[in-house]
């Protein structure tokens, strides 16, 4: 496959490209997804916990 003798290594080549494409698609689909925690909440966060030992 693709001139690569081992099928396993041909898959390593293909999966590397597919993984990069997957990252691009994921990033594009989630481009504006800021998640549940935003800047406004961050501004309210001033608490820092104690360390006990």
């Amino acid at each position, binding site marked *: 496959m693709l001139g690569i003798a081992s099928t396993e290594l041909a898959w390593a080549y293909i999966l590397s490209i597919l993984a990069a494409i997957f*990252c691009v698609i*994921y990033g594009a689909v989630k481009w504006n997804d800021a998640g549940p925690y935003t800047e406004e909440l961050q501004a309210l966060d001033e608490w820092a*916990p104690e360390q006990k030992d």
Partner: protein
Amino acid sequence: MAVKIILALAYLVVVFWLGYKGWRETREASDYMLAGRKMNPFVMAMSYGATFISTSAIIGFGGAAALFGFPLLWLTFLNIFVGIFIAMVFFGKRTRRMGVSLDAHTFPELLGRRYQSRFVQGFAGLVIFLFIPVYAAAVLIGISRMLEVGLGIDYTTALLLFTAILAVYVITGGLKAVMYTDAFQGSLMFVMMVILVVFTYAKLGGITEAHQALTDLAPHMPAKLKAGGLMGWTQGARFGTPLWLVIYTTIVYGVGIGVLAQPQLAVRFMTVKSDRELNRGVLFGGIFIIAMTGVAFVVGALSNVIFFRQTGKVAIAAAGGNMDKIIPTYVTDIMPDWFGILFLLAMFAAAMSTLSSQYHVGGTSLGRDLYEKGLDASGGNTVTITRVGVAVTILVTLIWGLVLPGSVIARATAFFFGLCAAAFLPMYLLGLYWKGMTRAGAIASLVGGFCTSFFYLLFVHTKESAAIGLCKAIFGVDSLAMNAAKGSWVWLLQYTDPNIIALPVSFILAVVVSLFTPKLEEAHIQRCWRHL
């Protein structure tokens, strides 16, 4: 030579301007340690990638690909899927949210506050401060040797010059300066690597034609590699042979998984203000990493065909038997002259981006985690203490660079990756996902994982134990495993990555000890989880 010097100066002008921009925007501790938690996604992703990929990843692992061939592409797959996607989506988002909830400024501080333990923060800071200068020295020595060859500068002068340049902008500008310069350096690296792979495939007549030519070259594979278990560059290695173990446990598994617990990378998740930046970072990071390790490994392997056609020798022979010279020799002898100059700059960029982050994380570990928190030495100005920490890290790295031979230093990357994975990964992962993880479980995993990995590196894994020499000094052999029956599983341990043993040990300690020790207060767990 004049063109090289002008281009190098132009590059340095841009680096210093970005460093100055970082310094101007740095006012308080969160700016210095976390870039104000408001970093641009492109800058975050490029900085993450450029820190991840050092000169040794391109030159060293590219050379390894020239020896071992396409099996290294599994590392590229892991670099992208684990090092970018899993890291940013499953580790990064929770790290950022928990980091804000706990007001953590560094990776050890995140762990320390998650487990309400100054010991965890101090010990993690100590491990990072002690070992990251050795890892940084490996990068520093490599780039100083390139400066010596490329620009004709004396090695010691190059070492001092490079250190001075980095010291100026890392000490003054903190993480903002580091990340701005990283993004520029990463962009330069990206362009050069794309040109490299396009040129190589074009020279060999296309993708399939190039791979087929490499497949057909298998009969010319060096006898030593065949004896070690390799069948060809696109044929792979026989299962269970020493080279199979080196490729799949040390290179693919050790580096591919070890990246998840690298403090200089994990801290970048806390530099952005929302998940949006991490989502966009996945896009930029995926493209960047395939252009780095993907290209380095493919071109490294294919260089055998081009060298063979031009000189009648495969890559390792054409480079005089030195694996680290394969990519530089390819660039010098095969690529056009103009590319050689720019590639040299790209390698400077790769080294500088990794070194600046290593200095910064070493400095924050010493100043913030070990001195200020671990030793409870409060009262000073945090930014000043951290700047002193960065300066000390730079000085220690310089001393390592001046006194240690390259043969020992070259093992530093594997050493640092191994120790970080065993010591930090279980408590980091379980700390993000398991409410039942206890302080005692975290300490057992941290100390147990560190000690197991350290013992394995000193006494079992021959590559490191032979270079360090402690095993030989005490027991008279390079590895405790080498006297076992040849081919037995004990004998094969000397070729097996430490984390095949140390990482499961660390995970087991974390889970078992947590099951039998008191839980953290519910109120604290709720605070940790309030934004997850």
